[in-house]
């Protein structure tokens, strides 16, 4: 059974999340602040942490910073009041993190927890599976039902990123920043070119397709 640690200073919310997650088959432990969370993690392993930001003693930011500095890669789902969070978001979230804005929709929380766990597993296994297609990150290899081939790095990373969040629209600028780097001054047209090539490769895929939302961006959709 997967174990989740909840760091939330409000007792009512802590209990609520606990109920919801337990109902969905997870094993849950609740603590009231960042320090207690770290103490708990000294003794036990957790598959995921849900953390509020505003907590006494040690807040959410501090908690995650300490974890990441120590090399801990446990996925974290942060709970936040939106406005204060946006400033931090850019330099803060890693691939295994996500956030939700209060008031929390508990059904959505469950979905995000599932998605986070799945992504963390993909990163641990160094591979992503979508339908019958497997992407192996270390070898840049894509294996489908009928064939196996290697993609150039940028194309692979582009597909990998988008397929990690199926259904989510990424703007060209976001893809440019993530895959080519924030410093890169190239035109986002490069993204279009790479998407075109990916579409060529996976023209006949029965597992997914790349959808364009004109003027906005691209997304990978499971078939």
């Amino acid at each position, binding site marked *: 059974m997967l174990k989740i640690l909840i760091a939330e200073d*409000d007792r*009512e*919310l802590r209990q*609520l*999340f606990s*109920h*919801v997650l337990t*109902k969905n088959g997870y094993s849950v432990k609740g603590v009231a602040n960042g320090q207690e969370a770290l103490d708990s993690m000294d003794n036990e392993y957790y598959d995921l942490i849900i953390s509020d930001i*505003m907590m006494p003693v040690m807040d959410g930011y501090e908690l995650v910073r300490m974890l990441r500095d120590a090399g801990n890669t446990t996925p974290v789902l942060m709970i936040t*009041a939106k*406005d*204060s969070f*946006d400033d931090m978001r850019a330099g803060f979230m890693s691939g295994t993190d996500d956030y939700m804005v*209060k*008031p*929390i*929709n*508990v*059904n959505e929380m469950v979905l995000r927890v599932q998605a986070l766990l799945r992504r963390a597993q993909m990163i641990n296994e160094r591979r992503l599976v979508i339908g019958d297609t497997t992407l192996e990150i270390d070898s840049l290899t894509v294996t489908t039902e009928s064939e196996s081939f290697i993609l150039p790095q940028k194309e692979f990373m582009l597909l990998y990123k988008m397929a990690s969040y199926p259904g*989510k*629209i990424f*703007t060209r*600028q*976001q893809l440019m920043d993530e895959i080519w780097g924030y410093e890169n001054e190239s035109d986002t047209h490069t993204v279009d070119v790479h998407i075109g090539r990916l579409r060529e490769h996976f023209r006949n895929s029965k597992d997914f397709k790349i959808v364009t*939302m*004109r*003027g*906005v*961006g691209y997304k990978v959709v499971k078939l």
Partner: protein
Amino acid sequence: MKTRENFEWIRNRKNNRFNLKVRIMATITAGMSVSILIGYAMSVPFDEMLPYTYKIPLLLKLIVISIIAGVVVTVFVTRWIFEPLKQLRVAMEKVADGDFTVRITNKSTLKEIQEVYSGFNLMTHELASTEMIQNDFVSNVSHELKTPIAAIEGYSMLLQDCENLNEEQNEYVNKILFNTNRLSSLFGNMLLLSKLENQSIETNQKLYRLDEQIRESIVALEPAWVKKDIEFDVDLETVKYLGNENLLRHVWDNLIGNAIKFSPQGGLVHIRLVKKDKKIIFTVKDNGPGITDEEKKHIFDKFYQADSSHKQEGHGLGLPLAKRIVMITGGKIEVDNAKNGGCIFTVTLGE
């Protein structure tokens, strides 16, 4: 608080003999005395030195010397008074533009001027901390109120999932959920709106990609438009804008959200962002029922809800909030009927 201490210290300094009044008096007196002395001293030998037989009248000499003295006095007065005034004006304009971090760091040897500078620095310091207090208040209250609401919503959802509820009970649970949703979105906007009503300066300005922000808004609203199977026609020029990113986000979220709300199932929402003559123009168009003249008059009023069939979905604060924010940035927002039915909102922002 260093600024306040600085201010008090300057005010209490006793030993400064060189204050402004004394200086000006001394300058004018000295200037005039020197001029008269020079004039007198030179009136005799001056004539003898000249090769001309033409005698320069005493009056003319005195006038010339007075002019020289006047210029000298003016130069000093300008340096002591007008220069600091100019510095003050420049700094105040920055404050009016929303920058509360401005401080005047030059030193003046004049006590009065130094007092003005440190008074100014104290003022901007206070302005900055007032703004911070207001922000903290809004976010603290938000946080405290949102927590019990989150609990009510959460348990209602858990109730919904319970299998042994009869139809009546189910309906009640749905009602509870529906209304807590309304409540939480309502006061969030209410707090922000009330804070903005007391504010007319746009603070925290930074340069960012406006087109990307609008895209993010569209993507964030995806659950809503997917549900109604709405198509988008989006064309945004790349626009870099200097403004308060967090505030403007509310404008796009509200306007695009409204377009989705009033679109029919399977409708089309049309979004454009262009730069024209140093102005930035954002338009969002839906193909819903459009807007009557009566509604046009009141649509930006607080709590006004045009179409009563949609009344329950919103809270009537989205548009007043959007308008307030746009006005703070110095822009304007307009609504009209589109040519082939539906509503079109236009936001114009200055450079």
